[in-house]
């Protein structure tokens, strides 16, 4: 039997105003100028793994397809290499738009469970918030624990290499004025641009 799915989009599938909202965030203003030339996808090293190409993400965002965009793998596959932003003929800061979309997806908790990238981002930020610095080993261990503990086993060889060459350290890194961080960030309105 042939499985078929309907791909038509109805106007009700749009979250109207989403595109405008994204374009009002610092760094994302140029999106309205996109001419869908595909340069971003053409230079993106990860576009070949994405469910939507970066160009499509631009089109979907501008057309208010919020759910499609925030659920896409694309935003998590962006490695922040900025190739697209540098090459875009309309000077759209695509990388920054990807960050904005990631923020919204995390804020609204719509990303695949156990998907390691948002987990890494979250663990990273929590560690920075608490300690002020990153202890790489702890970060990696947490990541594996929360996503795929078998992954840790598969990487034992690398761990051994790192240990052997003295690059893994269990000493917990932190800054002295940890209270400062909290005071400093207390006044910062998180997710300024993010919608409800």
């Amino acid at each position, binding site marked *: 039997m042939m499985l078929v799915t309907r791909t038509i989009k109805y106007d009700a599938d749009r979250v109207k105003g989403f595109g405008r909202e994204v374009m009002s965030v610092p760094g994302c203003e140029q999106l309205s100028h996109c*001419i869908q030339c*595909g340069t971003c996808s053409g230079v993106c090293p990860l576009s070949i793994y994405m469910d939507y*190409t970066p160009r499509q993400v631009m089109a979907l965002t501008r057309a208010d397809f919020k759910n499609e965009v925030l659920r896409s793998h694309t935003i998590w596959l962006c490695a922040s290499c900025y190739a697209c932003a540098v090459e875009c*003929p309309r000077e759209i800061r695509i990388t920054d738009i990807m960050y904005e979309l990631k923020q919204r997806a995390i804020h609204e908790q719509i990303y695949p469970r156990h998907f390691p990238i948002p987990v890494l981002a979250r663990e990273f930020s929590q560690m920075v918030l608490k300690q002020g610095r990153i202890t790489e080993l702890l970060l990696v261990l947490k990541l594996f624990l929360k996503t795929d503990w078998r992954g840790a086993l598969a990487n034992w060889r690398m761990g051994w290499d790192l240990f052997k060459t003295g690059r893994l350290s269990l000493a917990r890194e932190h800054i002295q004025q940890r209270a400062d961080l909290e005071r400093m960030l207390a006044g910062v309105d998180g997710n300024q641009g993010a919608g409800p």
Partner: protein
Amino acid sequence: MSATNSNHLRIGFYICHCGHNIGAVVDCPAVARYVEQLPGVVLARDYKYMCSDPGQELIEKDIAEFRLNRVVVASCSPLLHERTFRSAIQAGGLNPFFFQMVNIREQDSWVHADPVAATEKAKALARAAVARVGLHCALEVHQMPINPAVLIVGGGIAGINAALTIARAGKQVYLVEREPSIGGHMAKFDKTFPTLDCAACILTPKMSEVGVHPNIKLWTYSEVTRVEGYVGNYQVTVQRRPRYVNEDLCTGCQECIAQCVYKEPKFPDRFNEGLGKRKPIYIPFPQATPQVVVIDPEVCLNFKRGQLTGKCKQTCLAACGERQAINFRQQSQLEQVQVGAIIIATGFQTFDARRVPQYGYGVFPNVYTALEVERLVNAAGPTAGEIVLRDGRRPESIGVIHCVGSRDQKTHAWCSRVCCMYSLKLAHLLHEHSGAELYNFYIDIRTPGKGYEEFYDKLLDEGVHFIRGRVGEVTDWAMTPEEENKLVLRVEDTLAGFVRRIPVDMVVLATGLEPQADAPAVRRLFNISCGSEGFFLERHPKLAPVSTFTDGVFIAGACQGPRDIPDTVAQAGAAAAEVLALIDAGHIEQEPNTARVIAEACSGCKTCLPLCPFTALTWDEARQQAVVNDALCKGCGTCVASCPSGALAQGLFEDEQVFAELEGLLNDSLQDTAP
């Protein structure tokens, strides 16, 4: 002030809605109601389109019926319709200068979004005009004779066409071209789209006609260095660079070239975009006009660093024999001419592909610019039309990348307009000449022209691949065996929705059109403007596309913006028609805005004399006073503003008129009484 003598004044005020252009922002009836109660105003009307025939007739009728002696129209910019309304007022029996225009479209309704603020501004501007117009005087238009000769700068297809049109009308034309031959870019093209007629076949007859036409004085290898004067009476200086060959004596036999001590051509050939070679003595291309050889002192053995040394055997002299056309001592020469009008047709240059490093021009030998390919496919080109690459290979697959340097904020924001069509043409020719597989990479295909879309359809039928996507990069690193030793293009096939890597042997970059590098200098020379992108600025984008803000100076062709051959030829014709209309009128009407000396006030301080760049101010020894030569005065008013005794005045811009205008602008005490 303005109200003092308002008793005899009978001012008619008209405000134009201009459809929604003004009416949607400015409350026109309210402005009319407000103006109606100003001193001296006997009637105020608002009307949909004042510039229409009924609008003008309305003014004429009112002048008679209400015995109006002054008229104010609030509508668009005076630069657009001042003449229109002056004529209407004249038709109504009034002196045309008993009129003032108020700009409430370009400088009010189009630039302000708030209707209240825009309406208040319109009232203030109207108040100022009403205050001013009462002080207007009856003036007469002066007539100046016009020199019927014409200067045309640039000998490309635009300059050639304009020159022939004007010369055929019996006028003297001076055609100045920087290169050793006329022909411009078109002479380099192989075929022209969409008809695929041979560029040389349609251009050469016109070039020859220019060369022999009795009314055309052709100066190639020359540049305009100085322009003085004004419409109807320009003095132009042209510098003729030495070509070391006497044009009148050279017969174009080219025996000197054959006999040159360089047995083989050795130096990059500019005409062939550096793909071919030439000797130090050369003729740019077989159909060159004039058919006169040129010596390049940079590489000729007889010169060192441009200085004559006489170290060569000078076999060319022997070859020329008793014709004695070659003259190593030729010097640069200056020519002076008087003309009444000027057409600038200096064309464009192509975008430097090195500015887009990701496409590898200059790094990978098999990446070509479109202009290079024009020479490559040309039967008279360096490879006689064979598609042989720089590394000697013959391509089996070719990628044409559109929009190189165009539609890109980092290079040029504009669409260069011709690249889609010439890319299609080159794809067709490359396919025809090499049998290679052709890929066109485009963002949008733009084929708006007669027969253009049909040409695109023909290419589709020929099996040329069209991939909608802007190429990310051209690179030489291979991922798969078939990519080895190829140029690889990574691109999103946006219509298929995935990224592709496409290996090709040759890449063609469809470089865009940009202003000539010396456009800013040329602009200064002729006192015209450039747009922000650097092309020459037309007087009005729709209604005066070949005129400039300088009377008597016209523009044609790609110096005004990217355009193809049919449009360029049409523009050249339009510029020629404008010039002929100007000349055949026989005289020029001069605005009565010249300066005059108020004799009783002049103290004879001579402050004004050095201020006039046109030497219109002279010293009358007998009366010990300054005198204005009306024929020379251009009407800037600089001397008027500088006279310490107030002894100079300017027509249309009298001091009292400006003061009245300021009073009107700022005195809003009348506001309170307005309904």
